[in-house]
């Protein structure tokens, strides 16, 4: 049994950590406060090769495995969840569908810019009245001559309104009981990007609602086979769950580190608060939780890299790691006391950033459903 990362993965983890600490950490407080999507930093992440990590070199990627991508997401999340989700969504939802289901021509057309991080892709699946019921797509796509005409709306779409957003892949009903995925280039007439949401957290991440009003794109923008849009979406979902788990591990790791440092430094009743079991045991429990979450996450990533089934492992990692992250941010805030409620400390931001992890890419309830079904239980949806 071998539980070590390769030396190259370890080296790369350190590079991403250095990058996050030097290029992101000094600015996170300001981005969070001003709700700024830092384009230059995202472009720098692109230059570092982060957005092309798991794709072949022929499309401008790095040919790394999925585990390495998870390491990068974890390290970014240790400093800033917004930048971590920008990477996760850019790779997993922007570029991955094009790579997995695109024709060679579509790959050549869109992937090089996405891999280089010069452009960002988004995936429009969720609808205002859909949520977890992702199959109930109300957005319609009608073939009119050699063009798709798209009408409908999408909600909570990450990376959909940045200055470098290039494409949005949209799922739409293309016939009775038939869902297809269609690529809509940013700026297409009839595509309305709504003003950004006022979110609880992830303030530096770009999230919008989208409206499609007679939005026309060429017929050749169909991604994957007609009618396979929903099935294809399900196929990329498991990857995303592991990646979100990695993000949660990074956030929980940050809580652990901040808590330990503060427990050593903050003095009360004549000594550091870390000498009290009430504080020390919280740190001990956090350390166990982070270790568990990381083990589940990298086991799932490893299964995927090995080409083995990983649906259940992905759901377990996502469920456990994201719930742990929420617990970790709550406990870290408690250890920081009043300062944990003030935005000058990172833990206040961590607390706001954590909750969405139990919701996005499948809620905790959906993960439990997936796991229950994998256990052979006849659970109703």
């Amino acid at each position: 049994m071998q539980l070590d990362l390769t030396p190259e993965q370890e080296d790369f983890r350190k590079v991403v950590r250095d990058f996050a600490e030097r290029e992101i950490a000094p600015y996170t407080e300001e981005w969070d406060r001003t709700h700024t999507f830092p384009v230059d930093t995202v472009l720098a992440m692109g230059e570092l090769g982060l957005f092309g990590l798991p794709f072949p070199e022929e499309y401008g990627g790095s040919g790394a495995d999925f585990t390495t991508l998870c390491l990068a997401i974890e390290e970014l999340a240790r400093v800033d969840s917004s930048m971590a989700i920008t990477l996760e969504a850019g790779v997993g939802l922007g570029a991955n569908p094009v790579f997995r289901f695109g024709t060679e021509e579509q790959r050549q057309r869109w992937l090089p810019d996405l891999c280089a991080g010069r452009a960002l892709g988004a995936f429009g699946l969720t609808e205002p009245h859909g949520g977890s019921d992702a199959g109930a797509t109300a957005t319609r796509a009608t073939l009119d001559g050699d063009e798709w005409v798209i009408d409908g709306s999408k909600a909570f779409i990450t990376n959909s309104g940045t200055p470098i957003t290039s494409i949005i892949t949209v799922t739409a009903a293309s016939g009775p009981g038939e869902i297809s995925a269609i690529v809509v280039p940013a700026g297409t007439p009839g595509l309305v990007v709504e003003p950004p949401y006022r979110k609880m957290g992830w303030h530096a991440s770009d999230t919008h609602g989208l409206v499609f009003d007679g939005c026309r794109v060429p017929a050749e923008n169909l991604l994957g086979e007609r009618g396979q849009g929903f099935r294809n979406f399900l196929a990329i979902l498991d990857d995303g769950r592991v990646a979100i788990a990695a993000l949660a591990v990074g956030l929980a790791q940050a809580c652990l580190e901040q808590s330990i440092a503060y427990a050593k430094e903050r003095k009360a009743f004549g000594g550091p608060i870390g000498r009290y079991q009430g504080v020390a045991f919280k740190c001990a429990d956090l350390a166990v939780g982070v270790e568990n979450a990381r083990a589940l996450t990298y086991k799932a990533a490893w299964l995927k890299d090995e080409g083995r089934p990983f649906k259940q492992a992905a759901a377990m990692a996502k469920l456990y790691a994201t719930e742990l992250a929420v617990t970790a941010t709550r406990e870290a805030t408690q250890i920081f006391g009043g300062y944990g409620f003030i935005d000058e400390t990172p833990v206040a931001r961590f607390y706001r950033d954590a909750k969405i992890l139990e919701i996005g890419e499948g809620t905790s309830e959906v993960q439990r459903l997936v796991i229950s079904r994998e256990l052979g239980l006849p659970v109703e949806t």
Partner: protein
Amino acid sequence: MNVVVCAKQIPDPAAPGELDPNTKTLKREGKLILDDSDAYGVEMGLQLADKAGGGEVTLVSMAPHDEVSGLRTALAMGAAKAILISDDALQGSDSLATAKVLAAAIKRAEPDLVLTATESTDGYTGLLPAQLAELLGWPSITFAKHIEVTDGKAKVQRQTEEGYDEVEAPLPAIVSVTAGVVEPRYPSFKGIMAAKNKPVDQVTVADLGLSADDVGWKGARQEITDVVPAEERKAGEIVEDEGDAHERIVQFLEQLKVI
């Protein structure tokens, strides 16, 4: 243009260092990393080779236990190859002995230009660049904040306290670079994977035609007689503002003769 960059591998400054009580030198047992101050030379070398439209960067390093971890970082940034001198006989080398070894290795690479840091982050002697130049008989320019290579000359802006001097020297030359010279790139994953297969030529003192008597403890002309902990910083004086704080600060600065 071929550039040699002297790349020192040092104990991680983030980990607490330890001195050997007998030799009074830094313990170098664990994994060593690329000295941050050498990343500037690596980046400068890569940019100069790139601008010249050809050539490559060769790293030269002296380290115990065949250590290559730090070199891999510089190779991942884009350096083409490395010469590593690792030999038990080198233990205890002072800066002049180190310069002798590096100079012999640099000659092998036949560079147009040699770049070094102004000083290492662990030893801080700052002696090596000039010693190398003397041993090789090449011009030395120190504290470069900007380098251009044209017509077989290195044109350098040399950092001074007031600003900078513009100086030039024919190639080959030794130039030590400051941390302001360029912003080092981060190694990419592709770079890290490529570095695995880049050649590291491991040589001994004998391979370089040097005698073991000229290096290490035997060859050292300096001896560390004592090491004392740095004096702890004293608590400062806090000036409470009762309307006259500025006058008292001015007085204080006048006492120090800084204004």
